[in-house]
């Protein structure tokens, strides 16, 4: 098989490529669903349709999508600037630690102080975790991919160390922290549902990021730096500074995601505060084509599948990991199909 470059890409191939990618992903994931003993058609209905079929489950989707909105946008900003931040996982965790630290040590603050403080501590936590790789990249030329990756397991160990040690729950003795002060609880965004203000904050961040990235000079400079750093330097754009700032903002947003999860959902720090939200953020950002609108849409899709995965696991006994398999496969399939559009497939070179 040989791929030959197409001179012109017909317009209709865009949606077609995505449709084919979804079909491939569904077909491949049908196999493990079958192996788990469930009917794939029934399962996919529950993955993709049931979560959106009632208001109450739509609220669950919004709740599940919230951390992905934060990490997806965080990764998208960094990737756009050409800074490969694969450490959103660690930054998310340290953000959660930051919010918990004030939440359990200053529990009696009123909400007006506690809410901004908790979110700010989340941002600071994420920022601290992104500053070392960003500094090493800027001043030592050390590849950020490696350093951001290596700090992820360290952040997880930090959470485990705190929960096994100083922050072990004093009442239950379990390995999760005490409950944070109630002043830190993010209020419900939609009264009577679990959807909290973390969702609102994420959407505000996404709107602001979208405007900055597409409509301002800074946004265009970031895009330029990401596309070709050498050319950007030549055009008078300070790539190093831009990437440094993008890295820190990215870390701060991921950290706020961790804070939002502590203050809006768990109300304490737990081992499972992140279920791969940082890594999934890479999938969200990539599928979104690094655009803000895309992040919102893809986080919504993966949130839907996440809710569906819980449902399928309870009703049809298919392990929840199928949701993660689906999203990773979807990313690879979409990228492949979108790329394949540029080529014609030739089975044998004719003479």
């Amino acid at each position: 098989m040989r791929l030959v470059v197409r001179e012109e890409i017909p317009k209709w191939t865009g949606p077609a490529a995505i449709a084919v990618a979804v079909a491939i992903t569904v077909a491949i994931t049908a196999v493990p669903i079958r192996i788990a003993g469930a009917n794939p058609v029934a399962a996919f209905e529950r993955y993709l349709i049931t979560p959106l079929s009632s208001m109450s489950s739509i609220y669950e989707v919004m709740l599940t999508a919230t951390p992905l909105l934060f990490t997806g946008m965080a990764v998208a900003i960094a990737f756009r600037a050409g800074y490969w931040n694969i450490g959103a996982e660690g930054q998310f965790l340290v953000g959660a630690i930051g919010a918990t630290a004030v939440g359990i040590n200053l529990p009696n603050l009123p909400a007006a102080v506690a809410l901004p403080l908790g979110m700010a501590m989340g941002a600071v936590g994420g920022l601290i975790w992104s500053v070392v790789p960003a500094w090493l990249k800027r001043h030592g030329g050390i590849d950020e991919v490696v350093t951001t990756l290596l700090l992820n397991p360290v952040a997880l160990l930090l959470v485990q160390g705190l929960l096994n040690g100083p922050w072990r729950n004093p009442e239950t003795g379990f390995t999760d922290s005490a409950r944070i002060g109630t002043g830190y609880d993010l209020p419900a965004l939609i009264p009577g549902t679990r959807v909290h203000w973390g969702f609102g904050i994420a959407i505000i961040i996404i709107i602001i990021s979208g405007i900055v990235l597409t409509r301002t000079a800074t946004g265009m400079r970031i895009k330029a730096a990401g596309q070709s750093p050498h050319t950007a330097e030549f055009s008078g754009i300070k790539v190093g500074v831009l990437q440094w700032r993008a890295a820190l903002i990215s870390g701060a947003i991921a950290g706020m995601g961790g804070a939002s999860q502590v203050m809006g959902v768990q109300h304490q720090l737990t081992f499972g505060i992140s279920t791969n939200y940082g890594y999934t953020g890479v999938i969200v950002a990539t599928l979104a084509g690094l655009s803000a609108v895309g992040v919102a849409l893809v986080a919504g899709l993966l949130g839907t599948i996440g809710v569906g995965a819980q449902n399928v696991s309870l009703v049809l006994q298919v392990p929840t990991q199928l949701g993660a398999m689906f999203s990773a496969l979807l990313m690879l399939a979409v990228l492949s199909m979108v790329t394949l559009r540029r080529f014609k497939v030739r089975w044998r070179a004719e003479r």
Partner: protein
Amino acid sequence: MTSGDRSLLALENITKRYGDLVANDDVNLEVAPGEVVSMLGENGAGKSTLMKITYGLVRADKGTVRVNGEEIDLKSPRDAMAAGIGMVTQEFSLVETMTVAENIALSGVGLGRVDPADLRERVLEVMDRVGVHLPPDQIVGALSIGERQRVEIIKALFHDCKVLILDEPTAVLTPQDIEALFKTIRRLRDDNLGVLFVSHKLREVAEISNRVVVLRHGRMVANKPIEETTAQSLAALMMGVTPDTTTAGDTPLAAVDPRAVSKTAEARQEVQTAKSLLTIKDLSVEKGGIKALDSINLTVHAGQILGLAGISGNGQSQLVDVLSGTLPTSAGQISVENVDITDSNVTERLRAGLGRLTEDRRGTTFAKMSVEHNLVVEDLHKFRRTGMLDRKAIRRHANELIEKFAIKAKPSDAVGSLSGGNIQKVLLARALHRDPKVLIAAQPTRGLDIGTTGYVHEQLRDRAAQGAGVLLISEDLDELRALADRIAVIFRGTIVGELDVADATAERLGIMMTGGEEAA
């Protein structure tokens, strides 16, 4: 056509299409033992494609390649080598981090053990046969361009090649290196090898070849013994005009004729006394302990085009970078008019009146970004309204420049989809719309077709006529002598001399470019 019996290499009915573009259209070509065949053609005439097909790098849509009358199936360069075809490509294909011997062995190695002593011996043997000597254990990255080419030739001959293809081998060489190359070619010819020599320089073709073929728009338009040709007839065939009309109007050939455009001696005198717009004083650049530039002194006056000749790799690119603001200065001073820009960043330099047109066109544009965004990326601050980018103003700006510089593109087209000539026009527009006081133009016409080359030359002359200064860095001596008022020569990071264009003969420049003589 003669029969394939006595021919070493025979290409028959070669056709290759890239979409609508026909790169090679039914081409037939033969090379006999002991014969040097030159292939002439403009850029884009299909020479390189034909050579790549012959060497198995590109597959033809139609046609056959024969060696000694036997048809060979060219799936990869290995097949070509096995059949006795060797090639020296235009851009060298050497691994810079490997030694000379390792590079030479590369195409022959299997998967198992390589015996360094045995390899060394075989390499030295071939070197003796060709009469070229290089240290086998030297890392290729440390060799000069001329030496690298010799490695390429030895590499080709390492596999008992019977036909050697040289794809524009002289483009990057000094006159002295060219002489040495020709000596090698003659030696190979006397050894009964067939040589296919691709070029677009008539003088060289006349000197070295037995037979000439001319390619135009992918078709072979001439195939004659060298004695039956004249420079005029070949040039006409290359350009696709009949010899009678070449003198009419602003033809490409006239554009590179120095006498047609040079200023009079008095005019040049006048320029010398005009104010200096770009002053480079004792400029040095050091990187990793190596002095890339050593005490450079140059002055460009208003209305003047100062040429800078030199073989690539002698500090030109560092000079462009240090002037552009992407490489820091180690010592010395750079000023535009009276503003010291030595430590200024890129934006400050642009504001001071510096315009830049660099050699690496694709490297100074954003391929995936639109034409309109590429045009404003250096002055985004001018297109802001209430903190946001003013999209309408950007579009208007783009439309104006597209018209003014005759760019064949829409504002929303991605720059990566444009032709080389149109990219150069985008860059010209970006540099010139600010009316720079000084324009640095490095290899501004390399790889461009004749029409765009003429256009770029015209723009440079216009700038100078309007009182700007132009620093023209080029390897093309004809171009320098056609455009420049004075020509400085750079060699190993220093300026070895500066001549009035009237005194700058090709021979003299050639000697200076190789550090042969220090003219005052």
